[in-house]
């Protein structure tokens, strides 16, 4: 009977499961696109299912701050957390990293443009999942988390710190001195640049721990992957329709690709790049020039054996079209990290969706990508796309609490 009957029975069960999954999650079992089901859930073709699966699994394999050999040391992460929230990092004690990257704002600040000592020119990006990026900053001027940390630390408009101040701080505070010793196993280096780099590597190690948890979208995606009918059916119909727009007519997934919902490169989306009349933000063009000029990039002696991670830095190409391009941001936690675009010019996610719906092609670079077209979404479609984008938020992200650090004296 038995082996044959069992195989037949297993096959029948699998077939039935597939059919019921197809109806619950709106999946076309034969791979063809079908009309939406009566409960408003769309059907997904085999090609669409493959595109959905490409946005996971989440979290991806662990990543590490490139060129930072201390990145995974618990003592370095602890020092980094301690420094991240310490306003003493700025000489006048007014600002810390957390002034613009607040846990309650998904490690952004909720402002259009961040407020340092002056109002800055760009929006503070969320730090969630930043360890999985290829380039850091809206212009990608940094090729590692740690080298990114150096810029705001030294910028006179931001923390306005300097190595002599950091040295004093780390020498005078017994707790910091203790954590430094535990983290790096050495006294403060005599060289200012080396000191600055180690402070930045501690900050990079801490920021690298901020990896968000699976979202309602991930649960749907994983349910599709394992053909779990009940779990797939829990994903709301409007989010499913929005997802279908995202990977279909919207072609959003071309740039917002993969598990991070970003291909990690840069683009011009017709947002305009005037900081104020007569002053432009060169975006990626300036970012590449700054990267090449940086004494702290992955090709510098300060990078610890970056290996393949330095390939991008060695080969990145400066092109005219980079002018006014900005990084394609991850969409994970996007609903938690507004305002939007590099200068926060769009206050809400609904405005972002409208931007793409009514895109003005005349504002795009003449020599840029021929990729974007106005999506002309009707109000219902805009709501569906918003429902999908909101489903990319980790419900626990806003409840993040710093780890209690063991005493160090």
């Amino acid at each position, binding site marked *: 009977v038995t082996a044959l009957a069992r195989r037949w029975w297993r096959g029948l069960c699998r077939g039935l499961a597939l059919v019921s999954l197809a109806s619950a999650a709106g999946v076309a079992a034969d791979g063809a696109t079908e009309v939406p089901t009566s409960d408003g859930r769309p059907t997904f073709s085999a090609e669409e299912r493959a595109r959905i699966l490409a946005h996971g699994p989440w979290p991806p394999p662990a990543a590490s701050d490139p060129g930072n050999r201390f990145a995974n040391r618990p003592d370095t992460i602890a020092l980094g957390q301690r420094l991240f929230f310490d306003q003493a990092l700025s000489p006048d004690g007014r600002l810390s990293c957390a002034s613009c990257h607040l846990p309650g704002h998904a490690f952004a600040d909720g402002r259009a443009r961040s407020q340092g000592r002056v109002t800055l020119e760009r929006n503070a990006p969320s730090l969630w999942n930043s360890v999985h990026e290829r380039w850091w900053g809206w212009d990608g001027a940094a090729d590692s988390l740690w080298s990114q940390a150096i810029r705001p630390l030294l910028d006179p408009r931001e923390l306005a710190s300097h190595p002599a101040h950091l040295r004093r701080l780390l020498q005078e505070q017994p707790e910091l001195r203790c954590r430094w010793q535990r983290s790096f196993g050495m006294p403060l280096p005599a060289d200012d640049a080396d000191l600055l780099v180690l402070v930045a590597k501690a900050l990079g190690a801490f920021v690298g721990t901020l990896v968000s948890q699976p979202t309602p979208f991930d649960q749907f995606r994983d349910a599709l992957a394992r053909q779990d009918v009940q779990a797939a059916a829990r994903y709301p119909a409007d989010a499913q329709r929005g997802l279908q727009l995202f990977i279909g007519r919207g072609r959003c997934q*071309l740039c917002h*690709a993969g598990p991070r919902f970003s291909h990690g*490169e840069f683009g011009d989306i017709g947002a305009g790049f005037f900081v104020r009349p007569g002053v432009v933000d060169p975006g990626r063009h300036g970012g590449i020039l700054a990267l090449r000029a940086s004494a702290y990039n992955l090709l510098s002696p300060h990078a610890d054996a970056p290996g393949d991670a330095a*390939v*991008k830095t060695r*080969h*990145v*190409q400066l092109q005219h079209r980079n002018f006014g391009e900005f990084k394609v941001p991850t969409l994970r936690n996007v609903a938690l990290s507004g305002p939007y675009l590099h200068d926060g010019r769009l206050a809400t996610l609904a405005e972002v969706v409208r931007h793409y719906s009514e895109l003005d092609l005349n504002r795009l670079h003449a020599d840029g*990508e021929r*990729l974007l077209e106005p999506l002309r979404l009707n109000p219902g479609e805009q709501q569906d796309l918003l429902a999908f984008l909101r489903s990319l938020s980790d419900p626990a992200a806003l409840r993040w609490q710093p780890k209690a650090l063991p005493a160090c004296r």
Partner: protein
Amino acid sequence: MTRAAVRARRCACLAVAALATLAFLSAPQAMAAAVAGTPAQDARSDCGGMLDAKVRQVIRSTRHHLAYAPRQGPIVQGRPFSLDIVVCPQGSASMPIALRVQADMPAHGHGMNYQPTVRSMGDGRYRADGLMLHMAGRWRLQFELSADGRLERLVQVVDLP
């Protein structure tokens, strides 16, 4: 000659010129459609036989065969890769004095964001580093060979899911 006849002759001349230009432009290109990572089953060329057969691809023109294989397995969107390349001159053609590698997405009007470097390893073998196809869709991988005072462009389509 009537006006109509003059016009007809002018049209014919234009058509011939257009066809000749088209032939000239397309002659140096060998187009071969392939999906990245598909094993090359090329019985007609043993060029690059030492490359990993699982990922080896061969592009042929009358003057050169060019075999390449990604060093890190199949080409994947967003992952930097290197290519091992072997050039095999055909007939009286010489070994190229220079080789350039590029890639672009014709439908989107952009190339790579990275500039690959090509090193000659001798005996027609090359290594290209620093390639990265950052977007899903159809790319053209282009190999530009300088040999015998001519430029030859060998092109292969790579479809990334």
